[in-house]
């Protein structure tokens, strides 16, 4: 140990004496004087030179001996993976300014896939998005010619301006201060150029998760006043509501990229949507909504929503129209039970007559814990087999449910589930026709829907749960009307409630099995037949009485 220490102390004094000074090297290599490493002795890197003149071929110096950290970062980078060395960008014998920049190699990158590319490229360095583990900060400066109280920005007095406060401030500035203020935003990032990843940071990185710009400061200079406070970075980096869930949206699923629609910072106009939705736009562009730009596609459709329009419930669909048509309830005062109708109908049902409509009937069971949708386990438990629900109801397997099949099925289900079984019907618009201009042509006739001629009558389905997914059994509304009322059938429309001459004619014209089926499907319409018959009978008796009075002169 003592020997090792002595050797170390000796080497400290003796080795420098053995070093070759840079000046000696410059005698031959004076062009390297201005290099980035010019202040170092050449032998620091070329440590295989022991004497001058040195050998013709020297070993390659190891950058890692001094730049260990940078080298470590670089080894993990995409450039290292591609086989680049330090010398690929750095020439140690030339001035620092000659170090290659990103643009030296990537001169033709146009960032086609970057939404609002111009804005991003103007504000950020390449490493801001492409380097790993980037840290950045935002500095926002507000210069105003008018004085400004602190609480104009920091309303709650916590010395921090949140997104809401910032928005309020912008509105205030726009309306009150007008042109006499200026806001400057500086986005600075300290990313290592050595650690460039294979992929750039996603939109989410800044616009949702806030990975880069964790801090923002706000500095205000207003008519001599000067103050600063913290600022929520999302005040100046718009939070994108859906980027994290975008993959789940119908656009995301079908491979539409952000930049396919966000071609600029401007609002997306209908032309962007029309590029893919040409057929729909072809209908829409001539309608009342589109004329005079009363409504853009995106006013009604949020392309960032995970739920597609098809998946929206009645209430959600109504709320889309109600954004503008806020007084829709008032306008529908003429409609009997308007609130009730709006529980089951969406605006398109009536206001877009050419839309494709259908009706679905979901089965619910109610127990102590409340009403819920029927599950396949309920069906299996009730019927004691793992048969498909559609086979349990469609006994003869003809793919069509008749009254003699539906009634026993629901009666058995009710008995065996020992709960309240119900059928919930709702009308759904399966294919929206984007022309809502025919608003004045509505006829306000109940029989448009409350009759067998209703447009959705041609596609009515009873939804039954299966082991995987659901069965959609085509069914006639009149068949459902034969279901006993004790089952809590929660719908009231269809042909069952309005008697028509055509019903009577069909009944009189039918024979045998067809008549039996029609009679079963009469539902509560039998009341009208019985009622009219009794009224006629009363009139008949009155007539007989009158005749007898005339005959007997009384």
């Amino acid at each position, binding site marked *: 140990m003592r020997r090792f220490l002595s050797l170390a102390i000796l080497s400290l004094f003796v080795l420098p004496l053995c070093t070759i000074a840079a000046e000696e090297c410059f005698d031959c290599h004076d062009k390297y004087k201005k290099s980035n490493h010019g202040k170092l002795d050449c032998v620091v890197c070329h440590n295989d030179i022991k004497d001058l003149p040195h050998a013709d071929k020297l070993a390659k110096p190891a950058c890692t001996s001094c730049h260990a950290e940078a080298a470590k970062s670089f080894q993990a980078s995409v450039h290292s993976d591609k086989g680049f060395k330090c010398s690929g960008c750095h020439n140690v014998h030339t001035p620092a300014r000659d170090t290659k920049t990103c643009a030296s190699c990537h001169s033709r990158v146009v960032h086609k896939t970057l939404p609002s590319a111009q804005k991003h490229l103007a504000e950020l360095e390449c490493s801001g998005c492409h380097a790993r583990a980037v840290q950045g900060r935002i500095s926002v400066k507000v210069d105003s010619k008018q004085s400004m109280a602190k609480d104009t920005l920091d309303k709650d007095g916590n010395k921090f301006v949140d997104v809401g406060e910032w928005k309020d401030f912008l509105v205030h500035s726009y309306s009150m201060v007008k042109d006499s203020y200026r806001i400057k935003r500086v986005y600075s990032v300290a990313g290592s150029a050595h650690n460039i990843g294979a992929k750039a940071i996603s939109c989410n990185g800044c616009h949702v998760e806030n990975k880069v710009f964790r801090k923002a400061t706000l500095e205000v200079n207003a008519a001599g006043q000067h103050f600063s406070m913290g600022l929520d970075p999302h005040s100046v980096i718009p939070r994108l509501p859906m980027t994290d869930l975008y993959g789940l949206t119908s656009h995301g699923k079908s491979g539409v990229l952000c930049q396919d629609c966000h071609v600029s910072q401007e609002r997306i106009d209908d032309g962007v949507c029309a590029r893919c939705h040409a057929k729909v736009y072809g209908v829409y562009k001539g309608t009342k909504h589109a004329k005079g730009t009363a409504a853009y596609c995106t006013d009604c459709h949020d392309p960032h929503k995970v739920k597609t329009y098809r998946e929206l419930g009645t209430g959600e669909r109504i709320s889309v129209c109600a954004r503008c048509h806020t007084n829709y309830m008032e306008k529908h005062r*003429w409609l009997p039970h308007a609130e009730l109708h709006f529980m089951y109908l969406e605006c398109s049902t009536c206001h877009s007559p050419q839309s494709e409509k259908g009706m679905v009937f979901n089965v619910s069971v109610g127990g102590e814990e409340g009403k819920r949708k029927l599950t396949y386990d309920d069906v299996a438990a009730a019927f004691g087999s793992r048969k498909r629900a559609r086979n349990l109801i469609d006994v003869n397997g003809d793919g069509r449910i008749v009254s003699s099949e539906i009634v026993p099925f629901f009666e058995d289900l009710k008995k065996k589930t020992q709960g309240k079984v119900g059928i919930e019907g709702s009308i759904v618009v399966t294919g929206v026709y984007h022309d809502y201009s025919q608003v004045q042509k509505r006829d306000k006739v109940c029989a448009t829907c*409350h009759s067998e001629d209703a447009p959705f009558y041609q596609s009515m389905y009873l939804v039954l749960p299966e082991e995987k997914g659901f069965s959609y059994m085509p069914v006639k509304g009149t068949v459902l009307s034969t279901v006993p009322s004790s089952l809590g*059938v*929660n719908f009231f429309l269809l042909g069952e409630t309005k008697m028509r001459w055509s019903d009577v004619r069909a009944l009189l014209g039918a024979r045998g099995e067809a008549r039996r089926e029609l009679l079963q499907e009469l*539902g509560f319409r039998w009341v009208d037949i019985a*009622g009219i018959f009794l*009224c006629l009978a009363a009139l008949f008796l009155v007539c007989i009485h009158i005749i007898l*009075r005339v005959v007997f002169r*009384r």
Partner: protein
Amino acid sequence: MKKNETDLHPFLIRIWHWANALIVFVLIVTGADLRFTDVDIFSDYGFTVNLHKYAGYLLAVSFLFWIAVYQIIGGFTRHYVLSFKDMRSIPAQTTYYIHGHFRGGTNPFKASPSSRFNALQKLAYSFIMFIAMPLIIATGIVFGNIMDFYALISATGGIRVLDIIHVIVGYIFVIYLIVHLYMATLGKHVFSHTKAMITGREE
């Protein structure tokens, strides 16, 4: 007042009767328009619905007025509740309408201010006023305010049960009206009863 005339119908009852008649007429016409899609009396559907709805509310007011009037003038039980004596008179009254009337027999019942209705009339009127009227008014009010009574409707079998009760009672009213209008012609003269309901005096 002539010698052989009696004051049969009090003034307030006559007012109620004709007001009620008008309301019931409106309700039957609008009801038929709403019920039968092949019938198109009023072209404005919203107008028909509202007319039916508000005429229904008037019917409820008229019903309360009828009860109030009888509280004032008295004789409610006497006129409408079937007594044992009334029950015994049913066969004779029925026979009169079916047979005796044509043979020139006299009506076994003689109306008086203390007892205006015969047993069959009492049966019909009490059924209409104590059962049918409250039922159609109650279902009508629920029908007019479905969302307010949604829990009650669900508990009692849904809207179609409510609808069917309302419609059945509606038909009962129509049948009653046919018979009532005809029976009104069975007085001394064809319009005797009608006239009595206007002047209050019956021969």
